[in-house]
């Protein structure tokens, strides 16, 4: 085998370079907002135990519910309040309903959305709570 030394040096450099990315993420990566198993951990609102549906449903299908609410409220005029699993009454509204408990978009919505690299267009029109980028790091 020719150039054995050069090949192995090259390989070593490649392996180190490839692993350094993983190592960098492990060492300096923002662990904030992640659970111990590495999955994103959105911050649950304080003082509110249950959402309008069970957690498992909300995790997978909150967007379906939001679309349903949107159509009911705007198109059918069904603006009555909805009851949470815990018995609280909430407005069928992203800004006035969801955000009344989930006070932080950065610490709730964004954590999973960034992890999953989804960019929902809700916020093109709907106003997110005013949060400084600092509050993202501060936590």
């Amino acid at each position, binding site marked *: 085998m020719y150039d054995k030394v050069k090949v192995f040096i090259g390989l070593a450099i490649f392996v180190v370079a490839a692993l350094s990315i993983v190592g960098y993420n492990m060492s300096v990566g923002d662990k904030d907002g992640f659970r111990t198993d590495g999955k994103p951990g959105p911050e649950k609102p304080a003082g509110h135990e249950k959402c309008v549906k069970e957690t498992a449903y909300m995790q997978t299908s909150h967007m379906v519910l939001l679309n349903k609410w*949107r159509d009911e409220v*705007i*198109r*059918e*005029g069904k*603006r009555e309040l909805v009851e949470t699993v815990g018995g609280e009454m909430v407005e069928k509204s992203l*800004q*006035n309903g969801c955000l009344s408990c989930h006070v932080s978009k950065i610490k709730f919505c964004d954590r999973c959305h960034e992890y999953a690299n989804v960019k929902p267009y809700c916020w*093109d*029109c*709907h*106003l997110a*709570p*005013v949060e400084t980028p600092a509050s993202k790091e501060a936590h």
Partner: protein
Amino acid sequence: MDNTRRKFLKLAGLTAAAGVGATVIGSKAMASGAPAHGAPAGHGAPAAAHGGGHGDVATGVRQAIVIDTGKFNDNPGLAEKCQQACHSYHNVPDFGNPKDEIKWIWTDKFANVFPEHSHYKKDDRISSMDIIAMCNHCENPPCVRACPTQATFKNADGAVMMDFHRCIGCRFCMAACPYGARSFNWRSPRGVDKEGHPFIEKMNPKFPSRMRGVVEKCSLCSWRTKKGLDPLCVEEANKTAADAMIFGDLNDKDSKVAKLLRSKFTIQRKPALGTKPSIFYII
């Protein structure tokens, strides 16, 4: 040979007749099936549901506003207050340029608001008067017909609503509306002007803004009327001058608006177009 030709012609004739027959039956079936399949937010259905665009039998709710222009004339600045109440709540941007203006409620001269009622020798009061104008929430709204995505539609209360989620910004509704009640966001309402001044002075966190490329207009405060509240402009106007604007159900014989319309002479904007506006003016 004659025999075969004869047979061929017979067969061809029968085929043609069968084809025509099938088409006629098919189209008849389609025509009778159409109303059942017609989109509920489409053209025919809502008209029938809200007092009928074609018949005069009033059914369901039809929200309307009666505007007493005299009271606005007696209280200068009242119309601006109403506009401020509406625009600040609904995050209506001010692009600082009449060409790009976004307006849900505004004022204009009598001759511009009522071109059909305008005549050569008007009295001084009428000539100087500023008339408040807004979406007419027509019973027969041309914008709803024009909208290709049903982003604008008539709701169960008779108000012409915008579903901003569906608007594709084609502006057909703006071309269709004879009252200039619709405005287009040429720029992002969340942006800032050259001096860095935001188009929306103070964002109201209770209501969404719009995005670039969306048409917007008055929604007759459907979010308020469902709770039994008057629209913002009506509430604001009545704070200063009682009954300057009266909101109610036109189809309810005992409602204040219905009674008022029976007892007072009122006019509507461009009645000859047949849009049947729900905004009435006492001059």
